[in-house]
C-alpha cells in the first residue's frame, strides 16, 4: 500500500521554472513519478521537461486532475503557494522551501487543516514510496521497496539511514521527511498514525533531533496507540543549549528539547533507541 504517495499520485510542481523546481522535476520524472503540471505565475504556456506550465494552480487542477503538489517556491512567496494549492482543493501539499517565517506557518497550518488538506514540511526533503513515486529532493537510487516506514525531521541523516538499510536488504514502504522548522504541517504522530494503518509497513524507524517536544509526544503515542514496532534515532546529544543547529527548529531552549530528555522518554516506554545511524540496521 505505502502512505501519502504512490502510483496514483498526479503531481503538480509549484515553482517549476526555478532552478530547484526544474532540476527536481527532471529527477522526479526519471524516478517514474507522474509529474503532470507545473505552476509559475506569469509563465503559463511554456513546457519544462515536457511538463505543461500554468499561471495558476486552479487552471492546472482543472486541466490535469492534479491530486498532490510540491512547492519549490522561495521563502517569501512560499506560504502564498500553500494557500493557492489549498484553495484549489489539493489534498496533499509537500513544501520543500526552507526559511519561511514561523508566524506565517502558524497561519498557514491552521488554514490548510481547516480546508481538510494535509501539509508535509516546510523545510523538508519530501516523501518517497520506493518503486512507486518520489515527491521530494531525496536521491531515489538509495531506496528500495520493502516494508519499513521511515519518518524523520532531517534530510541527509535520513538518506544515511536509508542507504544503510537498503545495503542490508531492508526495503522501505514510504519515507517521510516532516521538516526541520519549529512549526510544520505534519508532526511525527500524524505520520505514525498512517503507518500503523498501512498494510505494507511492518515496522517504523523514527529519526528525531533536538528542539521542541514532538519526539516525546510521539513516544507516548507509540506506547499507547501503536502495535507495530518502532525504532528511534535522536541526533544532537552534543548540541549546546541556546544555539540553533542548522534547522530553525533544532534548538534547546530553557532546558527543554534536549536529546537526553527525548532518549529518556523513548527508553521509559521501552522503545529501542539507536546509538548511531549504523546501529539502526542492527536494531531492525
Amino acid at each position, binding site marked *: 500500500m505505502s502512505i501519502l504517495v504512490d502510483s496514483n499520485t498526479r503531481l503538480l510542481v509549484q515553482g517549476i521554472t526555478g532552478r530547484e523546481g526544474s532540476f527536481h522535476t527532471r529527477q522526479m520524472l526519471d524516478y517514474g513519478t507522474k509529474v503532470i503540471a507545473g505552476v509559475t505565475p506569469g509563465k503559463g504556456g511554456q513546457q519544462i521537461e515536457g511538463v505543461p506550465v500554468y499561471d495558476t494552480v486552479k487552471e492546472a487542477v482543472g486541466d490535469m486532475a492534479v491530486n498532490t503538489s510540491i512547492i519549490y517556491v522561495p521563502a517569501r512567496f512560499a506560504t502564498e503557494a500553500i494557500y493557492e494549492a489549498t484553495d484549489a482543493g489539493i489534498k496533499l501539499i509537500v513544501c520543500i522551501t526552507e526559511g519561511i*517565517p514561523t508566524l506565517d506557518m502558524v497561519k498557514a497550518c491552521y488554514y490548510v487543516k481547516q480546508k481538510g488538506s494535509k501539509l508535509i514540511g516546510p523545510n523538508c526533503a519530501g516523501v518517497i514510496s520506493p518503486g512507486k513515486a518520489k515527491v521530494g529532493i531525496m536521491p531515489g537510487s538509495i531506496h528500495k521497496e520493502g516494508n519499513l516506514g521511515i519518518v524523520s525531521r532531517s534530510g541527509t541523516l535520513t538518506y544515511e539511514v536509508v542507504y544503510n538499510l537498503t545495503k542490508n536488504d531492508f526495503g522501505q514502504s514510504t519515507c517521510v521527511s516532516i521538516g*526541520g522548522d519549529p512549526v510544520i504541517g505534519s508532526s511525527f504522530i500524524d505520520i505514525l498514525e498512517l503507518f500503523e494503518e498501512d498494510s505494507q509497513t511492518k515496522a517504523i524507524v523514527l529519526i528525531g*533531533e533536538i528542539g521542541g517536544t514532538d519526539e516525546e509526544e510521539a513516544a507516548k503515542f507509540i506506547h499507547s496507540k501503536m502495535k507495530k514496532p518502532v525504532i528511534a534515532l535522536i541526533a544532537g546529544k552534543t548540541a549546546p543549549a541556546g544555539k540553533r543547529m*542548522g534547522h530553525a527548529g*533544532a534548538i534547546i531552549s530553557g532546558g527543554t528539547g534536549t536529546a537526553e530528555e527525548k532518549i529518556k522518554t523513548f527508553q521509559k516506554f521501552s522503545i529501542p533507541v539507536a546509538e548511531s545511524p549504523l546501529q539502526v540496521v542492527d536494531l531492525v
Partner: protein
Amino acid sequence: MKIYEFQAYEIFTKRGIPSPWGEVAKTSEEVKKIAEKLGRPVVVKAQVLVGGRGKAGGIKLASTPEEAYQAAEKILNSKLKGILVKRVFVKESVSIKEEYYLGVTVDRAQKRVVVMVSPAGGIDIEEVARTNPEKIFKFYVHPLLGFKSHQANELASALTKDKNLVQGIAKILSALYRIFEEMDSSLVEVNPLVITKEGSLFALDAKIIFDDNALYRHPEIDSLRDLEAEDPLEVRAKEAGISYVKLEGNIGCIVNGAGLAMATMDLVKHYGAEPANFLDVGGGASSQQVGKALDIVLSDEQVRAVLVNIFGGITRCDIVAEGLIQALSKREMNLPLIIRLTGTNEEEGRKKLKGIKGIFLADTMNEAAKKAMEVVKS
C-alpha cells in the same frame, strides 16, 4: 536573533509598557553620573545575551552614586558566563510587593502563539513549568483572529482580583502581543512584572528574541544586531551561507545536512573525543562551499583534525572528491583529514582521494569518528 535588555526596553517603552527609567553606560564614570542625575537608588545590570544574570553576579543594587560606581567597576569588563560585559543598564530601583511573569511565544506542538502569565515571577519560567506547572496560565491565540482585549483581561484576572491591576496587566499583555506579532518574534517576555508597594506596575526586565527567518522583512531589527558579540567565525560562515556553531572540542567537522552534522558530532563524542564545531555546508555541497567550510574550520586554532562526512545524494561523490582536492590544492594543510564519502558514485570518489598525503579514508561514519579520535589522542 537576540537583543539586549536595554534595546528591548526601548521597544517596550515606545509601546507604552511601564518600565523604571534607565540609561545604558559603558564606563563606571558614566554609571555614577546617571545615578547622580536620578538621585535615587539604582540597579546596575550587565548587558549580555544570556539568561541567569542575577545568579551569576551580573545585577547589583546601589543606594548611592558611589555604590553604583563600585558596582559598575565589578561588572564592567568582567566575564559573565564566559561573555565579556561591555555595557551596563542603570535603572531606577523600585520597591517590590509582588512579582509576576508575562510572556508570549510559539507553542510548537499546538502550532499556535501562546500568551502566558504566572504569579511565580522573578524565577526562570522553565523552572516553574517543571516544579509548579499549575502556576502557569496560558491562552492559545487564534491564528487568524489575534489576541483580543477581553481575552487579555481574562488572562490577567488569573493573577489578581484587583480590577485596576487587571486592566493594567491586560494592557501590557496586549502590547506584548502586538510587539510579538508585528516584529515577528519567537519570544517576548517580562520577568518580573512587579507591583510596587505604592500599587504601580513596572516591567523590571525586557526580553525579545526575533525569528531569524523573518529578518528579511524587518531591516530595522537587523540594525540592532551586535556583530561584536557574535563569534567572528560564525559571522563569516553566515556570510558564506554555511551554518556553523563553534564548540569547545578539537575535531573540526564538515558535513552536509543539519541532522547528519549533529549525528556526526554525537559519534565523535561517542568515541571519546570532542567536536570543535557544528557545520552544515548545505544541500548542494559544491566544491566552493566545501572549500569555504574548510577555511572556516581551519581558522579555529583548537582544531587538531578535520572530519569530513558527506552524503552524496544528488550531488555525486566523485564531484565532491574533486571539490575537496581543489580546495586542498589552494592551501597548506598540516592537519590530518579524515574523509568519509557515501552515496552515489562513492567508489569513484574514493579512488580520486586515495594516496593523497594526510588524508585518511573511512568507509563508515563510525570508522571516521573513531579514526579522528585516534589521531588527536596519539
